């Protein structure tokens, strides 16, 4: 068992305290390809933040590979994010003044890998994602699909155990969305990386093997989806 959450609570303090997560219990096995689905305001983004160690939680336990992730210093959290987790964001979050290859190199830079080595590795990953010729281009010179593939290369380069994708297709057209989801599925099958996709689109969720529904801060239904019954970007459910 790779990821475990026990009774995780999170409240945003403020004039009107907001109890967002109300006791999340969840376990995700190594090598799974799951999606967390929920409407906006359901707490799925907060859950993602906690899973990605971007934010802290108030109560309960979050365990990765038997290690409790709680009360970490900023330094330790940065280390975990760097080595264990790869992020893929809706708006790609590439650094605009760096070229594709420099963006892919960045996580290795924070690991202290030397310049030549990390350039080699970054080129290798870009090649795998079919972007070798785009290595020297800046993000604003690329299409959405290309940018997301650069972001995926950046997420993969540190060999993370977990990839967290936050609405990875949110900014892409449906054709590119299918490509990106197929790419993630392929990575999951071939490399055995655990992939957690957070989405509100059922079509996207349908590409994954297990769909975890979250509603009002608690886990609802958990669907096994081995057969991917609904056609991609489903016909029966709400789509973009």
């Amino acid at each position, binding site marked *: 068992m790779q990821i475990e959450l026990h009774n995780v609570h999170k409240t945003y303090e403020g004039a009107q305290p907001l109890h967002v997560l109300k006791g999340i219990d969840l376990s995700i096995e190594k090598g799974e390809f799951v999606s967390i689905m929920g409407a906006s305001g359901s707490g799925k*983004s907060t859950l*993602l*933040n906690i899973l*990605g160690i*971007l*934010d802290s939680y108030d109560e309960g336990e979050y365990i990765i590979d038997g290690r409790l992730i709680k009360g970490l210093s*900023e*330094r330790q*959290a*940065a*280390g975990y*994010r*760097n*080595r264990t987790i790869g*992020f893929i*964001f*809706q*708006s790609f*979050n590439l*650094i605009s*003044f*760096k070229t594709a290859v420099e963006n892919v190199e*960045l*996580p290795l*830079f*924070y*690991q202290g890998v030397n*310049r030549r080595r990390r350039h080699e590795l970054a080129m290798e990953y870009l090649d795998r994602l079919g972007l070798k010729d785009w290595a020297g281009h800046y993000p604003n010179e690329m299409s959405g699909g290309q940018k997301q593939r650069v972001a995926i290369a*950046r997420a993969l380069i*540190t060999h993370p155990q977990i990839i967290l994708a*936050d609405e990875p297709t949110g900014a892409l057209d449906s054709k590119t969305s299918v490509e990106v989801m197929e790419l993630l599925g392929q990575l999951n099958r071939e490399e055995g990386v655990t992939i957690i996709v957070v989405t509100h689109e059922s079509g996207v969720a349908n590409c994954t093997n297990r769909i975890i529904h979250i509603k009002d801060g608690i886990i609802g239904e958990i669907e096994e989806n081995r057969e991917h019954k609904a056609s991609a970007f489903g016909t029966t459910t709400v789509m973009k």
Partner: protein
Amino acid sequence: MHDLFTEVWESVRRNKLRTCLTGFAVAWGIFMIIVLLGAGNGLMGAFNQSSGEFASNSMMIGGGSTSKPYKGLKEGRRIRLVTSDMDLMKKEPFSENIDQVTTSHSQSGYTLTYGKTHLNNVSLNGTYPGYADMNRIVMLAGRFINEKDIQDKRKVIVLGHLTAKNLLKGGTDYGRLLGEQVKVGPFAFKVIGVRRAEENRDDRDLNVPYSTIKTIFGLDNHIDDITFTFHGLPTEEANEAFEKELKAAVNTAHDAAPDDASATWVWNRFTQNLQMEKGSKILHTALWIIGLFTLLGGIVGVSNIMLITVKERTHEFGIRKAIGAKPWNIMKLIVAESITITAFFGYIGMVAGMLACFLMDKTLGQSSMEVFGESIRLLVNPTVGIDVAIEATLVLIIAGTLAGLAPARKAAKVRPIEALRDE
């Protein structure tokens, strides 16, 4: 290091105009520091030059008039030093500190004649061998007056090199004059040496043995003043105590009250130098402070611009943190950028300041003012040395760090969830 500077360059390049505008204030601050210190150095250089011709460890003592009655003698009596006062200084307890004792006497308004050359308005300056040390005489040919000249009342003379040059009709082989006879007024002297001299200052003072001039002019035992060099009085207090003791001894010899302050006067070049050094330090510090305050404006500007940069790059820092940047990695970026801007423009200011000092040296530094017939240079070498350049570099690095610190802390505190926020 390479990576850090690549990052800094990328950031600076994106904001050229505002970086330059901010940098200008820093450059101006450093420029002011350099120019102020250069001018200060020039001013102190000019002071030192006018006092630099004397041995710094010398004192001059002379007679005044009594301010109180003593031994039945009325106050207001004039005290004139005599040659035996010089012997007083060669005896215990003063001989412990005093090295050479001299006096001098000048008679002016003579004409110097050598062959067919005449030079008007020279003066005969009767003195002792010690005069050479006390006045830092540099001999260009021959020798200065010695004890034997004094004893034998020889008619020998030492010329200033400009006078010598005149006598040689522009020639500089001063050795040719040695052994030659010159006439000063009606008196003939043999040239024994040529010393370096300065125009309008001491060039026309021709040195002859004191005993010779005394005989020629039939002087009595009275002398104007006594100058002596000393050693072993390191502090101002020690000097004061010594002066007091000396004055008491001389006063007593002239039947004045030992504690009568105005019966004799002492001019101590050593303590005067100490005070001047103190003054020079104060001036130096004051100039630094003024310069630093000017620089402060620039630093605040850099700090301000860095804060704006941090605000603009919040999302980017969020991304960096999400993919594993530690707070220190982010802080380093901002501090390095701040130091780079400060140091780069600071150096431009420093070079400009040094150029300005150079120009100041070539213009103001060469001009001089006539004061009581003596020419005084306004500024002597108004430049700054390598030490100031190193100090200024340190100041820049410290200033850059300080300017970057607050913004960098702000940047380091950016939360990684900023990355998830849409731009």
